[in-house]
């Protein structure tokens, strides 16, 4: 190809150089360069048009713009909500622990006093007065320990339920992770266009269509769209309305 295109002219150029014919050399060189221009412009035009096509395809296929405008602000709000949830759960757990301390301690102290009196009774070292005191103490102790033990039991159950925050915050975090994955894909595509140019953009996947069967995760105030049940009572009312 090259020989056919430039062969004779290069020979002529070389010959002019050999005989020292500067004028002829320069004229022929200018000629050659001149004929390159349209070809160069042609190549540049083709390159530009290919880049344009790639960018257009990227703009249409890529989720980047949508991610930047909509999903990122959402993601921040979602993670903020996670912070709030974990903070509240931690405090609630500690509240319940703090509230369980006193009843447990009361029981322990009262039992300890009672144990002393009981030991005397068993060792037959107890006066009638003290025996009456023991009975009174017992009368007070039994109902008190029932009440206090129930308080502690209830608090422990509440602590258990409070750990539900891990599931809810986990679902939200998982949703944000999906977004990060999409962002990564879009950015990689963009880098490929800019570095290798043109035809190397992988066909971006359209947003994995959120099938309603998949679920949307926990409600995040300000982010979750659509009409949302405000609590279990709302759910019960809705279901009752449907005849359930």
């Amino acid at each position: 190809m090259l020989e056919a295109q430039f062969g004779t002219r290069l020979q002529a150029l070389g010959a002019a150089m050999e005989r020292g014919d500067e004028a002829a050399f320069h004229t022929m060189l200018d000629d050659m360069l001149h004929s390159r221009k349209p070809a160069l412009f042609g190549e540049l035009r083709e390159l530009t048009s290919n880049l344009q096509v790639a960018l257009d395809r990227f703009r249409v296929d890529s989720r980047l713009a949508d991610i930047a405008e909509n999903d990122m602000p959402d993601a921040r709000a979602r993670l903020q909500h996670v912070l709030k949830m974990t903070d509240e759960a931690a405090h609630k757990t500690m509240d319940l622990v703090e509230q369980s301390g006193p009843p447990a301690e009361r029981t322990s102290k009262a039992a300890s006093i009672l144990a002393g009196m009981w030991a005397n009774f068993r060792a037959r070292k107890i006066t009638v007065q003290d025996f009456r005191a023991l009975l009174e103490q017992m009368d007070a102790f039994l109902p008190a320990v029932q009440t206090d033990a129930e308080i502690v039991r209830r608090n422990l159950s509440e602590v258990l339920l409070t750990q539900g925050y891990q599931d809810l915050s986990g679902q939200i975090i998982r949703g944000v992770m999906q977004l990060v994955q999409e962002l990564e894909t879009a950015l990689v595509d963009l880098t490929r266009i800019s570095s290798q140019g043109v035809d190397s953009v992988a066909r971006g996947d359209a947003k994995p269509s959120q099938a309603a069967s998949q679920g949307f995760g926990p409600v995040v105030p300000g982010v979750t769209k659509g009409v949302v049940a405000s609590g279990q009572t709302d759910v019960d009312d809705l279901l009752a309305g449907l005849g359930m």
Partner: protein
Amino acid sequence: MSKELKFLVVDDFSTMRRIIKNLLHDLGYQNVTEADDGKTALPVLQAGGIDFLITDWNMPGMPGLDLLKAVRADAKLAKLPVLMLTAEAKREQIIEAAQAGVNGYVIKPFTAETLKEKLDKILATMAPK
């Protein structure tokens, strides 16, 4: 007899499965099995022996709604009591679950009392074995 009921608890978060299992124990139900997704739950159900299904909705493999539909579509499982226990709170989703044949719907976060109430309600409507 009812305390011998065998439960299957399905949720992709192990912490939530643990919470529900503990609550069921507190209510006297000792027979509780777990699965981490609709996909792993279905074979367990098809193997038989499960009397009550408690399932989450948002699970990566097979979401709870699809599990519910699969259960209702299977002649052997169609009558299985199903309680959905999920964070999904959009009205259209609740309606969809009801239309798919769910017996009860509890949204997270929930209380032990609510779980007991809904369980009892469903069990009351079950034909005695």
